[in-house]
């Protein structure tokens, strides 16, 4: 990962990796970023469609943002404005899932001037992004830990859409907060129940049941309390492309939610058609893997966790996570560059054996970030 060079207040980066993190942190910190050498050596140089769409989304929820892009799209200068929020709609690029965009809204939502009511349209689940179901379970649960009152925080999946054409739609509502709360979450608890949703879009509804059956078969080895519902979408609710998938989440005694997701292959792109049984088993196995990784949040939510810890009041926050993902490590480094927050990272001694992978204890002092957009009376 490239380190930033600072020129005045502006941070200079190279390459398109971690673009979302950089832009989100830029908006939060108010520091402009300049990103150069974006895929200069690729066949298609410059920003991709989905990244441009992200920049558009950030422009929508801010006031006074300046974006400068050079002709080839290999250089981006982003000067953030103040977070505005409000009601808006955004057509997400189908190259990435809605999750890609939704994560940035999850990161910024609390600090807007007006409560967010965003309608995002696009692909609800794919292979490289956490699906909207993941956001509804794991991410939402993570976010709720940082506020005293989560009234008005809601994610509604009104339509599902698969690759390649998408057509899914979710509505994200987020209240505004002046400050986050510091958290000390060390105990992840034990998995007490497993729930899930299987969906079949524009294919036979039997597919969903077949997935459920197999997934349950695996999970019942560990826990009797498994319940997977099927979501039969009809007509417009099923999006524009056929496909199926399953989302599973495991809830612990401490309210932690680990989630996993599997979707069918995209046949129109020439991939082999998937078998629902395989999908079901794979989803269950993946969920077990996430349980193995452990932590007080799902491995995909680590970034959200540490960001909110860093943005908290000037108090100590503590959290135990599983092994850090590359994305998290990237964010840790970026947090240091944007906010000057350094986390104390150490191994966390566990009491018992057989409780998954070695854990990591993250400790930090928040920067005392407060919502500067909100209006007081």
């Amino acid at each position, binding site marked *: 990962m*490239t*380190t930033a*060079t600072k020129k005045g*207040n502006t941070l200079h980066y*190279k390459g*398109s*990796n971690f673009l979302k993190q950089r832009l989100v942190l830029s908006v939060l910190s*108010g520091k402009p970023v300049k990103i150069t050498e*974006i895929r200069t050596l690729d066949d298609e140089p410059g920003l991709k469609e989905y990244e441009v769409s992200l920049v558009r989304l950030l422009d929508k929820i801010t006031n006074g943002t300046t974006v400068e892009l050079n002709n080839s799209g290999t250089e981006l200068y982003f000067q953030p*404005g*103040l977070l505005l929020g409000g009601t808006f709609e955004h057509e997400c690029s189908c190259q990435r899932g809605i999750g*890609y965009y939704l*994560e940035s809204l999850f990161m910024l939502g609390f600090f807007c001037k007006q409560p967010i009511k965003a309608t995002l349209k696009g692909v609800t689940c794919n292979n*490289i992004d956490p699906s909207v179901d993941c956001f509804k379970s794991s991410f939402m649960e993570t976010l709720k830990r940082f506020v005293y009152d989560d009234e008005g925080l809601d994610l509604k999946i009104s339509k599902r859409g698969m690759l390649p054409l998408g057509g899914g739609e979710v509505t994200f509502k987020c209240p505004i907060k002046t400050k986050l709360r*510091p958290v*000390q979450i060390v105990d992840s608890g*034990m*998995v*007490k129940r497993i729930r899930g949703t299987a969906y079949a879009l524009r294919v036979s509804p039997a597919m969903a049941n077949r997935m459920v059956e197999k997934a349950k078969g*695996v999970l019942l*080895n*560990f*826990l*009797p309390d498994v319940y997977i519902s099927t979501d039969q979408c009809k007509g417009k609710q099923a999006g524009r492309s056929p496909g199926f998938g399953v989302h599973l989440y495991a809830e612990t005694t401490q309210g932690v939610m680990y989630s996993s997701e*599997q979707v069918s*292959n995209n046949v129109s792109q020439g991939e082999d058609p998937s078998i629902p049984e395989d999908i079901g088993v*794979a989803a269950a*196995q*993946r969920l*077990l*893997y996430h*349980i*193995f990784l452990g932590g007080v949040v799902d491995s*995909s939510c680590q970034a*959200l966790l540490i960001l909110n810890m860093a943005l908290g009041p*000037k*108090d*100590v926050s503590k959290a135990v996570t599983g*092994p850090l*993902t590359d*994305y998290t*490590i*990237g964010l840790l*480094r970026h947090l*240091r560059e944007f906010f*000057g927050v*350094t*986390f104390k990272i150490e191994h966390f001694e566990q*009491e*018992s054996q*057989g*409780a*998954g*992978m070695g854990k990591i204890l993250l400790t930090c*002092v928040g*920067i005392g970030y*407060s919502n*500067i957009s909100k*209006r007081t*009376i």
Partner: protein
Amino acid sequence: MGEEDAFEKKKSHRDRHSGRKADKKKTKKANLNPVEELTAKQRNPKAFAFNSAIRAERKFRRKQDIDTKKQHIPLVDRSPIEPPPILIAVVGPPKVGKTTVINNLIKLFTKSPLSDIKGPVTIVTGKKRRITIVECNNDINSMIDLAKVCDLALLLCDASFGFEMEVFEFLNICQVHGMPRIMGVLTHLDMIKNSKTLKTTKKTLKHRFWTEVYPGAKLFYLSGIIHGEYLRNEIKNLGRFISVMKFRPLLWRQNHSYILGDRYEDLTNQELIRQNPKCDRKISLYGYIRGVPLKKENSVHIAGFGDLKIQDISYLPDPCPLPDAIKKRALVEKEKLVYAPFSGVGGIVYDKDAVYVEMPNSQSQMKKNEDSETSNIFTNLIETKETADFKRENWKLQIFTGDNKITDFDNEDFSQLEQNKIDSTKNYKEEAVEDSGRIRRKVIFDNNDEAEISDSDNEDSVVEQDNTEVKSAPKPKKDEDIQSKIKEVLTNLENKSAPIEQDLDSSDSEEMEEDEDSDSEVEDNDNEEDMAVEWKQNLVKKAKDAFLERISTSQNLMKLVYGVFDAQYQKAQQETQNEASSDEEDIGGIFKKVSKDQQKKKLEKDNMNLTESPLMFPWNTVTKDWTEEENKVLIANCFVTGKWKDSEDASELLKLDDTQNLSDVDGDFEDLETGIKHEAGQKRKREDDEKDDKADKEALAEKKRKLKEKFDSEYDNTDKSSYYDELKMTAEKQAQLNKTVFDNMPDDVRVQVEGFRPGMYVRIEFEDVPSEFITNFDPTYPLVIGSLNMGEENIGYVNVKIKKHRWYSKILKTSDPLIISLGWRRFQTIPLYSKLEDDLKSRYLKYTPEHLACNAHFWGPITPQSTGFLALQSVDSNPEILKKQGFRIAATGSVQELDKTTQIMKKLKLIGYPLKIYKKTAFIKGMFNSALEVAKFEGARIKTVSGVRGQIKKAASKPEGCFRATFEDKILLSDIVFCRTWYKVDVPEYYNPVTTLLLPPDQKNQWKGVRTTGEIKRDKNLRNPTNVDSLYTPIAREEKPFKPLVVPAKLQKALPYRDKPNHGVKSTDKKKSIDRVAVIREPHEQKVANMIKMIKASYQHKQAKLKEETKQRMEKHRQEVSAQEASKDRKIKQKKKAVFRSKSKAQISQEKKGNK
């Protein structure tokens, strides 16, 4: 008499001890004995019976109201364990005795007075308390800055004069920026000679002070001066109050760290200054951190100067530390330290041509350990006897033992070498640096030690050395640089050595460990890279292995995440990267440039454009089969079906309880379920075990008792564990955690994670500081360095609620420049006033309302909402202007909202005239200029002056801008038609920080910014061209001649007589002529009249005489009566006296008899 009554003790009732009544009481007591102890409610429950639900509800509600009113949102206490010195600002108008108070306080605490006090003075006053005293000069800028940082303000007031404006201004400033503790001190009390006036003055001043601060605020009286000092007792009392004072946390300071600079150094290369005296300087400022921890990445604002980026920050040993042991009762003389660099105590004072160093005696302290490189280097510099050039030639540097020494000639590119070394260490070859570092440090300290020894030899002597010597010597250009570089590197090493030593414990050798680390990192990077290339392939296995490896091999996870864990080091690394010098060849045969650099760059390139996803792997990667037994074991305990932790496992807990119970019984028993027999006898055999058991048991019993107590207390008072109590408890817990969590970390890592915590003495370096800051430095102006939180260094539109101060004489005009003190900053800006209408529109106002709050928008620094601010129209302390101004604070208020745009609307009326009128349709001209404009306003509501409403329909073709409109009624051609619209007004983007610190000392209080148009016109003697139309001219109205009223003769005839027009003489005329009749008397009549007049006069005279006589007689009589009365009284008194005398005599004799 009344008071005496109150204090007089009444004779109490004497209980009967025998007799009928006593017997009766005895029996009663015996019967009621158990009841006696009951409360009234228990004894007589009916009287307290519940009889009204509504009253009960009200009672309950009232109780709740009272309880809730007492509660405040619990704040997390962020004060550090070792707090910074308490900052005491001594404020007051000139000539009230501020300096005398400071002098006396210092003398009180340290026993040795300071001669010339400039700037802050830090002293140790107690075992746990230090104070910094700073005097506030008579400048509103200083008052504002100090009010923002001081913990306690001593507000001095000349009692013989009374309160001055400055006092109230300061109080108002304090109120706006978070109220510090305020203690009033009345001086010059000996000037009031009359004791009664003194008493009343004290009283009135006290009550005025109370209304301003809070009722009961402490006000000290310093009653007089003897030999230029206040009375010792009074000062002692004041000191005692100061040293036990407690402070409340203030919101702004709970979120911002700040420093009151007490020392500064100019680090610029002397050569550069010689070439260009106006060149930008590199400076370092020193001070204690206050508030919350300060991070290196924070921007700071120096009040009176501007925003700056911290170039470098490092902590220094405390120059004025608290005593180590707390065993003793009081401070030893040696521990009563003073630190006041600006006044020349405990530091270095720079004069024009010499350097004065106060030597370490009982007063100041210069630590002699190796931590204080800076001071060492300075002493080193001061101590130089030879010229720098000469020394430089003799310098020798040995890096490895047994290595040849590097002399000056190698040293030519010393700085270059420095950087190269850093380059080489960039690849985690710290050991080289460290080794060399240790040796190099020795080189430096060789000199230093000698210097210090010689210092200590000639104690108390002031070393005075011509700086010019150093200057005039043909000094190498880089000399200064090298010095600073060495210092930097040394501090680097100093910081680094600690964690590395720690690491040593875990691994065999540092080198090994470091290598391993770097290796693993590279591997890790490799993995990442691989993953990048084949991101969507099945790499779980490999990645997992990598993970496991990473975890097993890595000693320090932080190092993995953040790279080499040293900020300064990283900075150096960046510098070298920027410079990108291509010196890859060997230097001095020791340092090799490693080609890992290239490798790393390549890696970086590969990683640069990866796809970002929060997922560990894409969903469709295949994981291992968790249903297999060996894998199953790994996660079995993650489920509730697995094994629980001992502390949570129900069966474990039950068992624990059981053993407890059993041990209570301590006998034989048989577990029926398992059939195991437990025998007490068996236990007794193992005697040594038993002892342990006993101890365990006791511990357990203790634990149980505590638990029970806890449960009882929780169970008994259920209302205690309310929401509020919970909040309070979490806040307390958080405070505890904040204090303890980083306790065992080494300081240099801790400052990375936590920041430089309050109480640390730090040195902050800044670059690109204008030379005026140094050349015009005046220590009597406070040097407030406030940190800026995230986003606060940005600029935008600030929407504030503002109210003109009721003591300010004028109202404020919109878009007149104002000087605003907001957050740490003081700046001039141009506000626009507005009023928030009911439809949430901000309506433009020309002036602030006289007694109402309104909104103001200005372009300024983004500051968190609900931060208070105050506005001044000028900060010029020109006495003439001051005299005119009176109270200087024009307005106060707080921030409401921040934004990048504003929406202030000004009301705009478009006026048109009817061109042609049909029935209800009319063509209107003159409102618009073109059809396009009309099209924009189609459908808009219009109105005539007479109130007829209508609507714009469509543009008409003929006269450009004319349109057709319809109205609810037919309008007149003389009507004026208008259309009400709103026009957006832009707020000027003007923001100008008040830079008082950069002004020359004699002009510091005369900062001038933008002038108002009025001022400019006044200065240039311009006058507004008057609009003749607006002038008031006397209205000349012609008298309208009306036609005379003519009543027709026919009608006249018909009228009754009364109403008939009167043509004859008016009755009033008649009367007048009758009144004024002249009386001319006959001679006889004249005689009579005279006679009567004389009689009358003599009669009156007689009467007056009579009256006078009566009065005298009465007076005489009264006197007689009173004399009689008096004699009577006297007689009665004498009689009484006699009677009482005899009575008392009789009594005494009786008593005597009785005694006998």
